[in-house]
Each structure stands twice: as C-alpha cells, then as structure tokens.
C-alpha cells in the first residue's frame, strides 16, 4: 500500500510541474510590461526595478519560469500588493475557509447523492425513485449562485433561520455552533448540483451491479436484502462511483467561488475574484497554483481509496 501511494505521488510530480507551466504561460499572456502589470498602480520606478530584480522579469521567459518555480518550491509565492502581505500567508488563511465550506459540501453531496442513488435503484420505478429523479433533475439545473440568493431570501431574510452571510458572527461568534449556523446555507447551496449528479451516477451504477450474478448468489445463500443492497451491491457500485466523486470534488471546488461571493464567505474563491478585479496578478497566480496542486493531491487520495476498495487493482 505504501509503495502504491509512493508510486502515485511520484506520478503526480510531472502533473504538478505541468500545472505550474500552464499557470505561468497563462500569466505570461498579460499584455505589456510584466513588471508594470504586476505592480499596477504601485508601479513606481523603484518598485519596478525591485520586482525586476526579485523575479527576473526583464529576463527571457524560460529563465523567468525557473526563477518563479524556484521561489515556489521554497514556499515563496511573492507578495500581494493590494493586501501588502505574502501571497502564501493570505492563500493559506483563505484556503482554510474554502476547505471548510467545500469539504462539508463534498461530504454532504457524497452521502446524500449515494443514498439517493441507492434508494432510487432499489425502488426502481417506485414512488421514491420517481420523486428522487424529479428532484435531481431540478437540482442539477439550478445554478448555485441563484440558489444561494434564493436561500438567503427565504431562510435568512424571511424565516430568519440562518445568518445572511459571512463565516462568523461579528459579535460573540467564533465557536463551532456559530460556524455551523453560518455554514448551513452555503454548504447546502454548493452541494445541490453535485448531489444530483452523484445520485444519477449512483443509481445507474447500482442498477448495473444489481443485475450481476454475484448478487443472485448472495440472495441464494439467504443474505438479507438490506445487506445485499447496502453491502454487496453498494460495495461494487462504489468502484464506479468513487471516480465520479473525484470529478465532482473539482466541481464543488469550482462552485465554491460563486457561493463564497454570494454568502461573502472569506474563502480563496472570493479572494481570487477580488484579486482579479484589483489586478493583483501575483495573488491570482499563487492562489491558482496552490488550489490546483491541492486538487491533484486530493485525486491521489481518491485513487488510493479506490485501490483499498478493489483488490483487483495492482498496488
């Protein structure tokens, strides 16, 4: 198992390098002098000279890449000019908030989605199946940002169940119940579409598995139907559901950007949008590389989970 994880980690190195190359190339598309672009309104001659020296911005592209990469691996993502602090500090702080939001949403959509899919498949064509199919169709069609706004209107403004926005109450907040109250709506809004997609995939995966011969074997030996569905069938279905979870995690992470804006969640997505509007290039660059790298690592976890589940995968 350790060797398998190690193998996956080593295989991830070229992907991570590729990510840095892609981000670097995109940022190199910025028209005009890079130093002025990065500094924006802070482009005094001294600053330009300094940043040219630090980042080698007057050197050829390849050299600039390696200087940047060198800084990157030592944990130096540059300095945000709009916030006047190191990019890494800001990204790490913001990423925590995103991780809470996206993580909870992901767990929510994985559990609810799989459960809905299993129920739907086990009760195929029954009332529950039809109801779930209908709700899922609606769910996957509502953009998270619109859903979030409607939720604020209904549950925060009219019913006053939850706070309108933010992560903690300004006065007297800061503990776990406070966090959960703030988290409930954004996490739900963020998970709806992914829940729908996962429910659909789980349903068809379950239907596929329930037709297999080994399910008949389980029934023939007198295993309880509940165990046949939740054990034998679901376990096999998970083999095709887990990759879907990996992909959906990427969509949850993407959707977090909108939800963070709508609910003013102090996460990395909102930070990126603000940074783009303020033309804080280094902050965008650092944030994108950091989150993309985390996503690659997350996908390694997905692969490992898959190999734990399926003994036929060569480890």
């Amino acid at each position: 198992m350790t060797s398998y994880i190690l193998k996956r980690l080593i295989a991830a190195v070229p992907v991570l390098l590729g990510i840095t190359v892609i981000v670097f190339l995109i940022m190199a598309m910025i028209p005009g002098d890079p130093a002025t672009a990065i500094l924006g309104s802070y482009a005094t001659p001294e600053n330009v000279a300094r940043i040219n020296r630090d980042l080698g911005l007057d050197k050829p592209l390849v050299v600039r890449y390696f200087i940047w990469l060198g800084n990157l691996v030592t944990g130096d993502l540059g300095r945000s000019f709009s916030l006047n602090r190191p990019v890494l500090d800001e990204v790490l702080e913001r990423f925590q908030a995103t991780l809470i939001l996206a993580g909870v949403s992901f767990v929510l959509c994985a559990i609810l989605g799989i459960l809905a899919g299993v129920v739907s498949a086990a009760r195929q064509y029954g009332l529950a199946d039809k109801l779930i199919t209908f709700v899922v169709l609606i769910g996957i069609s509502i953009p998270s940002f619109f859903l979030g706004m409607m939720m604020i209107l209904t549950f925060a403004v009219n019913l006053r169940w939850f706070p309108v926005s933010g992560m903690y109450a300004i006065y007297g907040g800061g503990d776990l119940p406070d966090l959960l109250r703030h988290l409930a709506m954004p996490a739900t809004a963020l998970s709806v579409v992914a829940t729908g997609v996962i429910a659909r995939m789980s349903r068809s995966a379950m239907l596929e598995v329930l037709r297999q011969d080994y399910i008949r074997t389980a029934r023939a030996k007198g295993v309880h139907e509940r165990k046949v569905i939740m054990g034998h069938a679901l376990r096999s279905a998970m083999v095709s559901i887990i990759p879907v979870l990996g992909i959906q995690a990427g969509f949850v992470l993407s959707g977090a950007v909108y939800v963070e804006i709508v609910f003013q969640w102090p996460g990395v997505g909102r930070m990126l949008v603000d940074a783009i509007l303020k033309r804080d290039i280094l902050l965008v660059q650092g944030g994108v590389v950091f989150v993309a790298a985390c996503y690659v690592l997350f996908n390694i976890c997905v692969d490992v989970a898959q190999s734990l589940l399926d003994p036929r995968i060569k480890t």
Partner: protein
Amino acid sequence: MAFLKLLFRNKLAAAGLIIMGLVVVLAVLTPWLPLLDPDVTATGDRFKPPFSAGHLLGTDHLGRDLLSRLMWGTRLSLMVGFAAALIAALLGSTVGIVAGYFGGRTDNIIMRAVDMLMAFPYILLALAIVAALGPGLVNALIAVAAVNIPFFARNIRGVTVSLARREFIDAAKLAGMGHLRIIVFELLPNVAPVIVIAMSTTVGWMILETAGLSFLGLGSQPPQADLGSMLGEARSALITSPHTSAVPGLMIFVIVMSINLLGDGVRDALDPRLRSGALTRPRAVTQIDRQQPAPEADGASLLALQDLSTEFRVAKRTYKAVRHVNLHVAPGECLGVIGESGSGKSVTALSIMGLVASPPGVITGGAGRFEGQDLIGASYETLRAMRGDKVAYIFQDPLSTLHPLYRVGDQLCEAIRSHHKVTAREARTRALELLAAVRIPNPESRIDNYPHEMSGGMRQRVSIAMALANDPEVIIADEPTTALDVTVQAQILSLLNDLRRERQLAIIFITHDFGVVAQLCDRVAVMYAGQIVEEGPSQAILDRPAHPYAKRLMACVPDLGQGRRELEAIPGLPPAVDRLPDGCAFAERCNKASQACRVGSIELVGTSDGRRAVRCLDPEESLS
C-alpha cells in the same frame, strides 16, 4: 430520422427541445420585438414591481425595463455560450484529430498536455485566463472556450484513433493523398457527428459558465448585460426587490433545465442500453402471478415441483420459459435435468427459490414444495430463511457468481451467519472446515484469498463449500462444471458425488451433458422448449431413449462419460418460446413428425409403474 423519432418518444426530451427552441427563437427575434430600449435609465421608475403599467416584469435599480433587458440578456448569453461552444469545438477537435490521426509521439505529447489541463478544477483555469486578459465579455468567452478545449480534444481523439485504423484511411494513404486532404475529406465527415453531439451536450454548460463569470463581475461590463451580470447587479437589491434577481435567475434555470432534458434524451437515443427502461434491477423475490390456485400436495417428496410455469414478460411479448413442469427428488438422490440452452432448465431451477430475475420473470402457476410447504408465493422472509439453509445453489461460472470484492472466507462466513447466530471466530473455524471438506489444499492460506486470486476449479470448490455451509437438504447445481476444463470437471463431479453419499444430500443437477448424467444422476428429466419431454432412470434412458429428441441428443455424443460434449450438433433450433407452435414443440426438427404431431397438445405419458414417461406420439421405444 430514426434518431429524432427516438428523441420525440421521450416526452421530457421533447419538452426540453420545445422550450429551448422557444427561447432561441425569442432571442433571435429580440431586435424586432416591440420592446423598450434596455439601456434607457429612468431614476424615477426604479424597482417597479412586475405587472406595472408599461413594464410587464418591472424595472431594475436604474429604472430600466426588465423584460427588455431579460430578452437582450438572454440573447447575449445564448450568443456567448454558442460562440464559446463553437470555438472550443473547433480548436478542441482540431487538437484531437491531429493527436488521433498522427498518433505516436505527437499523440503522446498532446494528450499529456490535455491531461494536465484537465487536472485543474475548471474555474481556476478560467479565472487565471481572465486575470491575465482582464475582465470583459470577450475575455470571459475566451476563458470558457479554452477551459472546454481539453474535453473536445479527448473525445474527438478517441473517435479519430478508432477511425484512423480503418481501411478507407489506408486506401487514401496508398492513393497518395496528403495528410491534410485525408483529414478534411476522409476523416472529418465521419467525426463531424460526434463533434456536433459533444457540442450539444456542452453548450448549456458553457452558457452557465459565461453567465457565472459575468455574475462574478468578470464578464460583460455595464451597461451591456447578459443574464449573469443582470443577476450580479440585482444582488445588492436582493432583499428589497427580489424580482430583479428572480427574473434573470429563473431564465438561466429554464435554459439549463431544458438543455439538460434535451441532453438526457440525446444520450438515451444514442445509447439504447442506457435507456431508462432498459436497465432494470431484479427484485429480491421473483414476482408471482398465479392464474390458478396452487395444486394440492401429493406424495411426500423432499422437494417437489408441481405444474410449475414461469414466463418472461418483456414489453408486449411473453416468453413461456417453463411450462407445467413436475419434478421431485428424494434425500440422497441425484436428479439430472438436461436440455439445450434455452430449454428452461435453469429457469426451472431458479424458480424454486424465487431467484428468477424479475422483472421480467413471472411465475404464473404451480407449486414448489419443500417437505410439503409451498415455496411459490411464500413471504420474502420465509424464502430467505430457507435459501442456503435448506435449499442451496451452485451456479455456473464462479468468477462471476462469487463477489469479486470480498475475500472467499468472508463470503463463506456470511453464508453461515445469515442463518446461524455464531461469532465471527466460530464462523471462520467452520469456513476452514468447509474448505477442507471440498478438498482445497491449505485452507488456512486460501481463506483470505479474493476470488480472482484462485483458479477456476478452486473457485468452484469455494462455491460448493458455500452451498454446504448450512448443511442443506437439497443442492441445486446449475451447470456447475461447464466453465471448467475436463480434468477439473471430473474432480468436481466426484466431489459432489461423495458429498451426496456422505450427507444424504438431494441434488438437482442441471446440465447439457449426458456424460455428466451418466456419472452422477439416478434419474434424469429431458427438457425441451420449457417442457419435460422424457423422464426416467438415467441408465434406462441412456440405454433406450424414447423421445426422438433425447435419442438425437445422445447420438451427438459418441462416447459417454468422457470429456466435454455440447448439444448444439442437432440441426435446427428450438422454437422461440414466445411463438410456440401447436402440438409438439420438436416437430420442426423431428424426422418422425406426422400431421397429428402439429395439433392440440401432447401429454407426458407414463408407464404403469410410473418409472418412465415420454411426451411423444410416436416414441422411439415402446415403454409399456
């Protein structure tokens, strides 16, 4: 055309198509509709509610007419979405075709790059591009298109790779055509439909993504507004004037939903296997639909089938797989059921414990009595308690009938613990005993194997051990040796024979091999087209078959008792069980068939001692 028909048979997809068509038509016609100017501000008319005079949907925070802005915004969103889809399709397909057509290094490098692009959560890439180019609708469009290029590249490459190996490409190369000409004139026409389908499934997605970027303030800039930026601007007035948010938001919802419906329909129409109705899950117990009350119990057999009928109901067709079958078996006895594939022998066996896949299987009549108790129509819990405990099954191919993700020991323990309250350790000890009983060497090391780590013969021994787990009275073995090679077959047969002697097991052995019958079975029933056509002691039937079908079966088997024999050698095919002829089902293939054989129904006539019976008007041997 057939495709469109399929699409329209799906009502939801048709609804999606109609709604989408309506939205597109309205968007196209917007400049000619009698709408107010979308950009004229009127500070006095701010936030008018819907249905105000002159403003059907009300006005926004600058007093602009919402209906007009909605129409123009929809138009813009659709245009940007389509444009992004077009660009992504064009560039992505080009990349995909180049990679797929040239293959080798080119393919490798390109696909590596594509994989890396796909390693990003899509919005990060889009944000990075917008960050570099600056906010604006055109830049948002570029970003969304760019993010979707890998999707097209990967799909189109797959199709191209399979096409590039076809003869017509080779022929074109031999004819001296240049690469560009081959790609444009030979490859492209074949790839184009795939590109169009990929576009139709992603365009909704791209509309949503561009709207999203605009919502974030990174797309269309004021005063120009697409649906996303309308929603974004309305956000600050969400609480006081929710209608300004609801109008563009609902429109996005309607567009995305109709495209989703359409996409589902397209997918269903293209891949019939995924059609909502095609994939059904079998229930825990076969459905029962008895036409007549169950027959009275007769005799005191251990297990007896009386007048059992099972059919498959698929759409409007009914396949009568089993028709009025009577069978019985006593302790220590082995009954063979033999027939070609499709003769109904397996369905008969599965009907006993309600294991026929249902839907589409339905048991339509008869009784299956275990020690006198009727199992047909018994409650699920009654059946479950008996499955594996009183009556156990061994199936054909142990690779597909054992669960691939559980260790064999766990599967054995589960069989035990489904019927007996024992601790995990006791179950494991018992499982080891069972593995030893079926002569698996080194049970201690084998018990933690997964099925794929064992040979076919070992796997089938595990299946037999599983069937023995609760000391059942009856074992139903459904072609348990067919998937195995000859020597292993012989070992498994002798194992079953020994077990039957030692444990007084009753075995119903389903097979298509008379050699197996000769080795193992005391009595045999020959099935054809869902009916028993002959039955009696194995030796008597092997020596003097009475039914022409049985005789022909055996004629195909020159030397009994050796190796593997198939029954396919009889000319002709069994009749389709949804269109059974009158009279004898074998008449088409029988060389003794007369006029009388094709009318009415032919009864199974037994000898006076009840030992043999045959369903034939002109049997090969006179039994009386």
